[in-house]
């Protein structure tokens, strides 16, 4: 099984990844082979089996509605690719 180039491009757009033509070609092969391996799950009868999503799914963590974080704006902004005073600077999105 090999994914189509269209399929790879569709998924890359969803994932916000730009791929080169050779990456697209390679991923079409590799993802196809991996997905074929996943097909073995179809051998199993899973009717009536509830999905198990989390080892601790019985826990609902609740806490008092109290402010606990004291964010330090300067420390958080220190890693910004671009900043303007106490703001993150991002590319323009409206004309």
């Amino acid at each position, binding site marked *: 099984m090999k994914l189509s180039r269209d399929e790879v491009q*569709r998924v*890359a757009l969803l994932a916000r990844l730009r791929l080169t033509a050779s990456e697209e070609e390679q991923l079409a092969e590799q993802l196809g082979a991996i997905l074929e391996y996943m097909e073995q799950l179809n051998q199993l009868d*899973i009717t009536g089996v509830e*999905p198990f*999503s989390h*080892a601790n799914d019985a826990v609902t963590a609740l806490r008092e509605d109290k402010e606990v974080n004291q964010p330090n704006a300067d420390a958080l902004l220190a890693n910004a690719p671009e900043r303007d005073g106490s703001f993150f600077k*991002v590319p323009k999105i409206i004309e």
Partner: protein
Amino acid sequence: MTLAALTLHAASDTLRRRECSSVELTEAVLARIAASDENIRAYLTVDRQGARDQARQADKLLSENKSDSPLLGVPLALKDNFLTRGLKTTCASKILGDFVPPYDATTVAKLRNAGAVIVGKTNLDEFAMGSSAENSAFHPTRNPWDGARVPGGSSGGSAAAVAADECIAALGTDTGGSIRQPAACCGIVGLKPSYGRVSRYGIIAFASSMDQVGPMTKDVRDSALLLEAIAGHDPADATSVQRPVPKYSEALTGGVKGLRLGVPREYFVAGMAPEVEQAVRRAIAELEKQGARIEDISLPHTSYAVAVYYIIATAEASSNLARYDGMRYGHRAEAADLNDTYMLSREEGFGAEVKRRIMLGTYALSAGYYEAYYLKAQRVRALIKRDFDQAFASCDAIVTPTMPTTAFKIGEKTQDPLQMYLSDIYTISVNLAGLPAISLPCGFDKAGLPIGLQIIGKPFDEATILRVAYAYEQATECHTMKPEDRG
């Protein structure tokens, strides 16, 4: 023997007896790094100045006899996916190449409060995705036992640093075997605690329903001590559990007499190296000799675990890695508009394996495929969990190999992702079910490469697997062997 070769408990005793200072111990570790890390390349960042400052601080506390923490003054290493305040944290990715966290992970804060000396940050597969430490964006790490081979992964840097005495002990993370598999490759002890036992706050997320922090050490007692220091509920991590933390280091003795140990027949199959099978069988015979009852058990859905894991792990990863958009931190590419900035920043910032997994996970979660892949995988995950529940009705712990082979050669599996994924075949089920498991050395192959024994426990029963591991360790010499002793 140099100071750097000490175990954590021996180092702690040595410091308490004033036979050396933390500064001397730390200098010995730094000297060891200077001498051997040019070849092994276990570290991404060595914080020499920070380590010396922390050691001086620890010596002050030691002289005042104010703290009884066994970690006080002991030099430790951290996988570079633990956030460390003020110390660069890259996750071995170009997208976080210059990232300096504004806060410490909860586990790091606990180590600091206990007086540990943080020597540096160790190499890993980018975003903990891989089984060989070759996927690092910066450089591969070499196995201290054989420089042509991988140290395993993704916590390969931590495993190599411990094996080469470039630290006294280390922490890693384990999503599908990333602590146990490199521990087996490097001949050290690696413990993956139950899901929820240790806080994940401040650990760079890969697959949130499976990631867990754990110790990587020179012997079993050290793992117990380190787990004791990092375990426990953390209000900042909603998935960490509210359960008391046992004194693991006091639960080591007592032996295995009367314990029922299950050996799953599905874990001894074609494809495993004969020498690995022989070593593991010998270890099981040793445990039987010590009075354990060996039970033949079945975990019938074992062969589906790798497929289930790579659907769930990549789905969670694709979601977790959406935060790397180049806006608030990390690499940002120059592009014409917002969408192009996202696309190009991620294209330039992520390596090939990370892109492959984001693509796979996005595919598995996308419209039309969600039920066929993701939901189906979660249902089969329930069957895998049920297998373990049934097995634990008749046994106290499960004994298996950690890896089907010993460490493979650098470059051997990089071109075939599926082959690489299969090296975690014995460790993955444990993460899917949220169980604790430990890997410890149980022999060497003809080439002198270490072989790992895995012991899997009931949920939150770390004490029993530590006890079994300790009983086995006491009867053998494997854990005392060093790479330079190779004949």
